[in-house]
């Protein structure tokens, strides 16, 4: 399984991790060797197998609709890189995605 530079660029963007172009060759090699390891699964027939998302065969517990948390803003914002008027500040967002 070989990765193209374009693939790497695309995954890096999806993951929002900047990768310097000069690191591409070594990174590609490393990722390809992992994909080679992973390719061992290809030889197994899994057509009728039910995928396993959880090791437990249980169902989701439910919580009652009650307000149990109170305002803890001061504590929770202690680690924030940039706060103004109680808001988390980031560089201006240009596209309004909603």
């Amino acid at each position: 399984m070989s990765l193209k530079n374009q693939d790497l660029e695309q995954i890096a963007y999806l993951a929002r991790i900047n990768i310097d172009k000069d690191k591409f060759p070594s990174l590609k090699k490393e990722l390809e060797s992992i994909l080679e390891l992973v390719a061992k699964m290809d030889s197994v027939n899994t057509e009728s197998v039910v995928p396993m998302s959880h090791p437990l065969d249980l169902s989701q517990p439910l919580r009652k609709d009650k307000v149990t948390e109170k305002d803890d803003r001061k504590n929770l914002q202690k680690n924030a890189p940039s706060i103004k008027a109680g808001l988390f500040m980031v560089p201006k967002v240009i596209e309004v995605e909603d």
Partner: protein
Amino acid sequence: MTELHKLSIKEKLKGLKDSTFSSQELTESYLKRIKKLDNKINSFITVLEERAVKSAKEADQRYASGSALPLDGIPIAHKDIFCTEGVLTSCGSRMLSNFISPYSSTVVKNFEGSGSVVLGKTNMDEFAMGSSNETSYFGEVKNPWKEDYVPGGSSGGSAACVSAGLASGATGTDTGGSIRQPAALCGLTGIKPTYGRVSRYGMIAFASSLDQGGVLTKTAEDAAYMLKTMSGHDPKDSTSLNVEVPDFVKEINKEIKGLRVGLPKQFFSMNLPEYVERSINESLKVFEKLGVKIIDVDLPHIDLSLPIYYVIAPAECSANLSRYDGVKFGYRCEDPKNLEDLYMRTREEGFGSEVKRRILIGTYALSAGYYDAYYLKAQKCRRLVANDFKETFKSVDLILSPTAPDTSFALGAKTSDPVEMYKQDIFTIPANLAGLPGISVPCGQHQGLPLGLQLVSDNLEESKILRMAHHFQLNTDWHKSWPELD
């Protein structure tokens, strides 16, 4: 006077109850050892001297008034993956190198509630990804048994500190072997319980369906004490099992005669070093003498474990680590030019290379066009592995194998090829995939480096593996030796 750090948890509890020594003495002796020895080992990221002494004093008061808690006054350490309120919780990463947690994990609270004294937060592979503790932002951890050798990972700091006598026991987490493998490389007992036995609330997530908290201790008995405190249903964790926690301390004394141990033929047909095979064979003889039956078993899909793991774990981690974006907490790059730049550079600079590799693989495995071939395929293969175990446990109680393919290795020896490093977990990963409990116990030494054997049992049967480990330790001495440090 016996070196206090060499006493077992049981002996320590007795000593504290009988006022042979105080928790303060105990704690201060550990803090002294940490100051003296940890410079070279680097097992702690944060030492909580003041807090520890304060807790110790409070424990002593409770002993004096006859209201001692289950693990009162016992000095332990927490892997720096467990959120601890008011304390740096870094997960071994630059990304959280300034993160003072605003809340405590259930595990930390459980130990607090039983009176344990927390000496500090231990070093670890960044975001729990690694098998040698070489990826930590806070520097490598050294194996106390041999200079410039790795302690294993990702709970390398916990392993090193307990094996060097810098804590009575330490918590760890195990996603693909991160408790068991370092325990084996450092001559310790390390247990990963059934998935869901220990709450994951406040345990910084790597791969949600594989992560499980556990302990590293000198002995199975010590592990029983700590696991009892650590376990239990937590409504804050939807994947937490709502079942009673057995009294593991009582359980370990039950009989092991008649238990059936399976040896997967797939594991025993690899070209393992002779000394590894030898240590296993010798151990089997010990078990047989104790009345345990040894049977060959077949786990036909077991060699898919590594490929499965290296799709699922990166996939889940790629999503779990998306929250590290420089917006609400953690590292932020300097002078971000715009939002994109904020994300791209924060995550480039905040994460180390192994973490980035896994995020990229995970993103790829989930991306459009690849989901079926990778992620879905891996989840299906996972079912096959789990089914193999289910089938096998119809005819045996436990499965035995070496914990790691070899003894510890030199720092830097395996860092050039990620897949080489991944092979460290070949024996430990299957238990995580199936959610089964597993334990590693010391079973030999080679050229001064410890060897470990692994026992895996069916879901919720921690008692069986603890029992086997305890009886093994009553009949062997490997777990009793200490590295030469002083």
